[in-house]
């Protein structure tokens, strides 16, 4: 069964304290892995797409990496405004034409000033 698991569920960091969020996946092939940021009461905001193992993407203090079994979202020197829930989703490589994006339950990040 296709599955996405994110850890930790919640993370509290001091401002400037770098850390990583994990997204491990079990899918039949992989067409793409997506990271989103979701603020309270809002919809997910797209951050990155990763397609193949070894790929890396960066945006400001965020860097996403991908292996064959997991992805990491590294946050360097976070600021309070980085506080949000970070969602990971995968698009399986099933050739039946599946449209499904499988989501993890997210990591709730709180950065303290």
């Amino acid at each position: 069964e296709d599955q996405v698991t994110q850890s930790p569920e919640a993370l509290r960091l001091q401002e400037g304290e770098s850390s990583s969020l994990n997204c491990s996946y079990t899918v039949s092939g992989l067409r793409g892995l997506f990271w989103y940021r979701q603020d309270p009461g809002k919809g997910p905001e797209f951050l990155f797409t990763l397609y193949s193992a070894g790929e890396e993407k960066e945006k400001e203090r965020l860097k996403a990496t991908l292996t064959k079994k997991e992805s990491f979202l590294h946050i360097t020197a976070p600021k309070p405004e980085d506080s949000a829930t970070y969602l990971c989703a995968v698009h399986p490589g099933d050739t039946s034409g599946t449209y499904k994006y499988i989501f993890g339950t997210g990591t709730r990040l709180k950065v303290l000033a």
Partner: protein
Amino acid sequence: DAMVIQNPRYQVTQFGKPVTLSCSQTLNHNVMYWYQQKSSQAPKLLFHYYDKDFNNEADTPDNFQSRRPNTSFCFLDIRSPGLGDAAMYLCATSSRRVGNQPQHFGDGTRLSIL
């Protein structure tokens, strides 16, 4: 800016009283999705449209219906809302049905049931 817009942002309805949520998009994407998201949970796919081709998830209750009159608009109808239907409802679009394109989400409608 091209975007996905959901209305209303907050909806309060009575138990059993039908409610309709709307979604519009200016991205000209041919795929539109409806998700239900409860607190601290992953978004749960209810159904999606590929152009006018409607696809229902097997575990979506019959109480939930959808309409897509044109490319830009999509509606979620809840015929007889129960207390368990209180949630955030998210609309999303993508440019392709199969592939590696990210989804673009609206800001959701928070539905409360009295």
